[in-house]
């Protein structure tokens, strides 16, 4: 068991609201996405449908699922939506992308490297 290692990747103000950036975290491409309410989420940048590293470039919005507005990013390639909270694909529940712990400390975004 290794303790979570956090990497500071950028300042919060480097990410637009409802936009994303790609960060290199322990050698992996991670999409860091900021919602309209300033929640920050981190998930693998790799879109399993198109097999390309692009998710941070997708449109961010909400989809109503069972009465709840779920924040999502739509892959810019073929538009599948991924739940920002869980990495689950909203269009195909069998597919999910990895998520990363992320927090904002003093305006700096920190991402935890995945524990092996």
């Amino acid at each position, binding site marked *: 068991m290794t303790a979570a290692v956090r990497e*500071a990747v950028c300042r919060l103000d480097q990410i637009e609201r409802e936009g994303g950036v790609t*960060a*290199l975290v322990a050698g*992996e*491409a991670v999409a860091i996405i900021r919602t309209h309410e300033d929640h920050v989420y981190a998930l693998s940048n790799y879109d399993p449908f198109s097999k390309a*590293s692009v998710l941070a470039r997708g449109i961010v919005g909400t989809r*109503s699922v069972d009465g709840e507005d779920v924040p999502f990013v739509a892959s*810019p390639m073929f538009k599948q939506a991924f739940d920002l909270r869980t990495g689950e694909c909203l269009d195909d529940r069998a597919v999910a992308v990895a998520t990363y712990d992320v927090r904002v400390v003093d305006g700096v975004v920190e991402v935890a490297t995945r524990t092996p």
Partner: protein
Amino acid sequence: MAPQLRKQLVVVGHGMVGHRFVESAISRGLTEAYDITVLGAEPRPAYDRVALTSFFEVGAEALSLLPSGTYDDPRVRLRTHAEVVAVSPRQRIVTLASGEDLHYDELVLATGAAPFVPPVPGADLANVFGYRTIEDLEAIRSASKGGRRKVGAVIGGGLLGLEAANALHQLGVETHVVELAPRLMAVQIDDLGGRTLNQHIGKLGLTVHTGAMTEAILGDRRNRVERLALKDRNPLDVDLVVFSAGIRPRDALARAAGLDVADRGGVLVDGSLRTSDEHIWAIGECAAVQGVMYGLVAPGYDMAEIVVDRLLGGAGEFTGADMSTKLKLLGVDVASFGDAHGTTKGALELTYADALSGVYKKLVISEDGKRLLGGVLVGDAAAYGVLRPMVASGMELPENPEELILPASRGGANLELPDDAQVCSCNDVTKAEITAAAADGTITRAGATCGSCKTLVKKIVEDYFAATGKEIDRSLCEHFRMTRQELFDVVAVHGYTRFDDIVEGHGTGRGCDICKPAVASILASLLNQHVLAPGNRQLQDTNDAYLGNLQKNGTYSVVPRVPGGEITPDKLIVIGQVAKDFGLYTKITGGQRIDLFGARMEDLPAIWKRLVEAGMESGHAYGKSLRTVKSCVGSTWCRYGVQDSVGLAIELELRYRGLRSPHKLKGGVSGCARECAEARSKDFGIIATEKGWNLYVCGNGGAMPAHAQLLAGDLSKEELVRYLDRFLMYYIRTADRLQRTSSWMDAVDGGLDRIREVVVDDVLGLGDQLEAAMARHVDSYFDEWKATIEDPEKLARFVSFVNAPGTPDPNITFREERGQVQAATTDGPVSLGTTIPVGAP
């Protein structure tokens, strides 16, 4: 002869009915047992003869019922140019003009009809034509050309005669209609209706001679038509004559083969469409069913279905046909249905006539006043869609039947049709079948042939959904309960400039990948701000978001604008050098420019800096916006060119560059009628004429190709630009999201005619507004790539990793093929291993 296991079916004639027979034979499985050979004498496959008059406008290809020339079933073989000269029923052989013999087990005659040429002297002179085939129309067109304005006479004032007169009129020929009967369309309408029709046609500048008998056609020394001699009237000096005085069944083959023919011509068949030989069938206009010939396409289609049914072992019978007609002749609506002449015993007539507006309507009602038997409509045939099914279904008339034809009424549209009412007579589709199809989301053929029932079909479908409580949901997405057009108006009226205000005021949630790009496009059309300006950026669809076209491996392609396809060698060299320096794959596009593939997102600014410095600008290949205006080389080099097509294409491309629209927009300009720029496959296409430019609109290539239609002809450049400004803005304001111009035209109530009214005739008075909107766009244009590379804030986004801008994304891979790079994809995320991030805050 070797034994043939599969049976041979030969179809003689590839017209509309022959084609329908084959289509039905394939779809109903007749080809499981038969090999089908279709022999057409004409040089081309079947085409829509009902719409023949539109040939000048749309060309032969658009009329074709089988553009590919082959059926999608290997057991069917179509041979054109294959004229059958003899049938031998005893040997079961047909002989072609080439001398070739073909064996058949079953033979279907679908030879159609030929124009009737009355036995007048001079009918064999040059410049005397029929009106039946595309070749006839081509010959008429060529005879109407050149020198002074030509004068033409159409002999026959029936339905077909008026079609022919319409064609001559369209060709700019001074047109006379010569009809033996005392009124036009004697078969379909009555005296008053005929008079109303005369009045309309006279206004258009055509001269109608009713009760006029042609005695002779006189020729000049070169045997060309010069004069038409009429009995008891002054002769007419004419340059061409078109015979359209009815048709005669083409039954010569059957006669020579010894088959029975009807007294008045036509291959005699029984109710099963079988001739006097049990292996020979006849369908369509060549057939006389129990002695009666049917000169319309709908009964021919019925016959085709019945013969297929019989050959499959069924017992279909032809029991007569609905001879109702509705058409637009020279812009005048004319309809006739049921017992139009009131020949039923005791029939009552109810008429409405308004000489001033040229409307005449007559209903024929049963003696007891309860049933509608038939009617005539001239000048306004909107009620046809409801009235004809009322006759066919025998439903009871409402209490005040006159309301059905009074102008104040909505044409009886509130009447509830019974389920078994036949709505589409061409394809025999009932109301019940249409509602059933609406319920299961399937399709019927209703409206697919003559189209006269389309409005009624639409209403039935809408009523169905309204009745079942289902609204036809035209919402953009879950966040906006409105169409794109409604949203456009909301944004324009409120003057919104930000998505946040729009979604908070009129939507729910935070939007999605459907509404955000739609709003981005609307804002861009209205404001023409930079698409990457703060607040706009996050709304942009994939390609607009980085001003490049995203490719499968996460890289982008780059397309500099090459207006009209004209480019200097120096610019070509720069493009080549940039491609080499950044390792890009190059390909020539269909829009006459050069696409550079494989650019990493972080390299885009550097690539564009080089291109901009060399005088190039964004080609907007990534946008739902004007792409290119393709051109042929035109009169500057081409020895056939009549106008400078390249010059115009460049001017138009520069005028409309950067214009964001509901879908991509493409244009084309051809310098002569040879149309090398393929302008008619574009959203707007311009073709040079001797006198100016013809403007075609709403074409496209792609999965659902559409030929652009003529909007206006022989325009000066100023007129052309004015109409184009209006057309494009009208489209941008009213189209649905991702709706290209051709499907937009289909969706506009009234279609092309309506678009012409708005754009050319300016009936809505919107012209100035639309032009002003376009002027604002033209004045505010800027190159968005130049603006991007000059703005550090915008450039900040173009990095591979926010915390390691110097490290390329290891997930992007390439392979090599034919000496250039190609995109490769990975099987899963690629890790760089342990990397020490650089540039962290």
